[in-house]
């Protein structure tokens, strides 16, 4: 058990270093959502004046959750691309030929994606505070946001890993990039669900990303409330369960060859 934990930690550390040594992987996770956030807040800052817009201190406070979930999904894609590159380069064979549990290969990768989630949470909380947002939930609220960003990244990371394991091709994993935007924009991540038009509104009502975004948003825009946070956690757990199942299936398929 302890030996397996060492293996997972070693593989995870390697993946984290890989992300920091490959700027083209790290930059999209932080820079792109930050720019998107800046453009949104700068261009649509008066959206809070729309009737029925939730009562928030500022548009930046509202948008932070959107930037965080966007960033965690991009971290998941980056993790999937890195795994696919390992398969393409043959590095995965090195791991498979080693006497380690097969699941450690995927768990190590997801642990690294979770670490990217920590980075994402810290980054956007810091950006928010620097540019005038207020974390209404205080330090516990900020820690809750970071914790949810962490688990959210790992949860979506399961999908990225599954796609990498099934396709074995980095370009295929990169190809899901547009789908991320569809999932995010058909949720309440960047805009209140109640202000969306049909059918986007109905889709948003059932989109797990809406629950996750609302769960992360709640400690930022109000004091910590049980319902949105628990719903967000439940949505993350659901995504994680499906992602983990898919990645285990992908791994089995790959090892069955």
């Amino acid at each position, binding site marked *: 058990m302890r*030996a397996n934990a*060492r*293996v997972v930690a*070693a*593989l995870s550390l*390697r993946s984290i*270093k*890989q992300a920091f*040594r*490959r700027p083209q992987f790290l930059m999209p996770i932080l820079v792109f959502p930050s720019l998107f956030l800046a453009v949104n807040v700068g261009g649509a800052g008066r959206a809070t004046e729309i009737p029925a817009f939730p009562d928030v201190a500022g548009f930046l406070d509202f948008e932070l959750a959107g930037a965080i979930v966007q960033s965690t999904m991009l971290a998941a894609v980056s993790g999937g691309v890195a795994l696919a590159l*390992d398969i393409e*380069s*043959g*590095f995965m*064979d*090195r*791991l*498979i*030929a*080693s*006497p*380690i549990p097969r699941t450690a290969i995927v768990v190590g990768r997801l642990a690294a994606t979770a670490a990217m989630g920590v980075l994402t949470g810290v980054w956007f909380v810091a950006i928010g505070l620097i540019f005038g947002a207020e974390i209404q939930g205080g330090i516990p609220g900020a820690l809750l946001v970071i914790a949810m960003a962490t688990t959210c990244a790992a949860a979506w990371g399961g999908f990225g890993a599954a796609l990498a394991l099934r396709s074995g091709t980095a370009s295929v994993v990169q190809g899901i990039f547009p789908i991320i935007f569809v999932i995010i924009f058909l949720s309440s991540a960047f805009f209140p669900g109640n202000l969306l038009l049909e059918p986007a509104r109905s889709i948003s009502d059932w989109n797990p990303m809406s629950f996750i975004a609302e769960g992360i948003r709640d400690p930022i825009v109000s004091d910590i409330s049980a319902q949105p946070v628990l719903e967000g956690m439940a949505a993350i757990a659901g995504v994680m369960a499906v992602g983990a199942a898919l990645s285990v299936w992908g791994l089995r398929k790959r090892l*069955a*060859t």
Partner: protein
Amino acid sequence: MPAIEVRQLERTFSGGVRAVQGIDLEVAEGEIYAFLGPNGAGKTTTVRMLTTLLKPTAGSASVAGFDVLKQAAKVRQKIGVALQEAALDPLMTGHELMQLQATLHGLSKSQAKERGDALIARVGLTNAADRRVGTYSGGMRRRLDLGTALVHEPSVLFLDEPTTGLDPASRAAIWEEVRKLNAEGTTVFLTTQYLEEADQLADRVGIIDEGLMAAEGTPRELKAQVGKPRLELNLAEGSQQACEAVLGRFGEPLPPKDGVVVVALEEGAAGIAPIIRALDEAGIAVQDLHLVQPSLDDVFLEKTGRHLEGADAEEQPAPEPAPAPEPA
């Protein structure tokens, strides 16, 4: 107990491609076994099955006494693997890669450091250990790959085309290391498409072509199957007929070519000294002579009807002419 035992091993890929079509082989403990064949012959597919990376579709194989299908985890503990196109992360340093490999094989942190440092020194990469692998030359990558495969002191080492694409110096360094490992007791199974590599390194050679074993034996045995060594002599003085008469006592005279007298020798190099003495006694002076051995390419040609790919480029260099004896 053989280190590797393969019985009717087959692998058919989707689409019906039969990469390996029922091969049998045994590799004894402490042996260097070379699997020689052209690209696409089934060498890598066989290695991948023996290293548990690929499941056979029929037949059986055991490595270090463990079945590759039923006891795959135990096989992985016993083997070291350096695959074709060294599978190294270019973003890691040599030192990091060695530490990771040690961790994958269950070494403690202190053991990993000690063993990793020793192996990095052994493969001559101490000065480059803290550089990223992406900056390494092909030879350095191969040496690092070989080093990582040794981190847990495997009893059986698989090397898939370990010197493909390397310059002669790097190739010689890998050969030297393989010989040392073997001398320390490690069984080595290597695939190669280089005739010289199989000839120089291997105790026994298996020739594979189109997924089938075409021939197997020691390099000497295989060459003996296709012909005897030939002694070719250029005369300085004395008649060709007289020379042929002398040579006929030692072997089978072959048709001369371009004025060169040729005789097939039963005993190879051991037969040269008596011939020189006999020629000397007969007053025949030799300008130069060459002992020409049958090559593994001759074997490949004999067994498959065609030359091994790249054989011309990889043919062993022509032997240095032996110094001509001074006439009495």
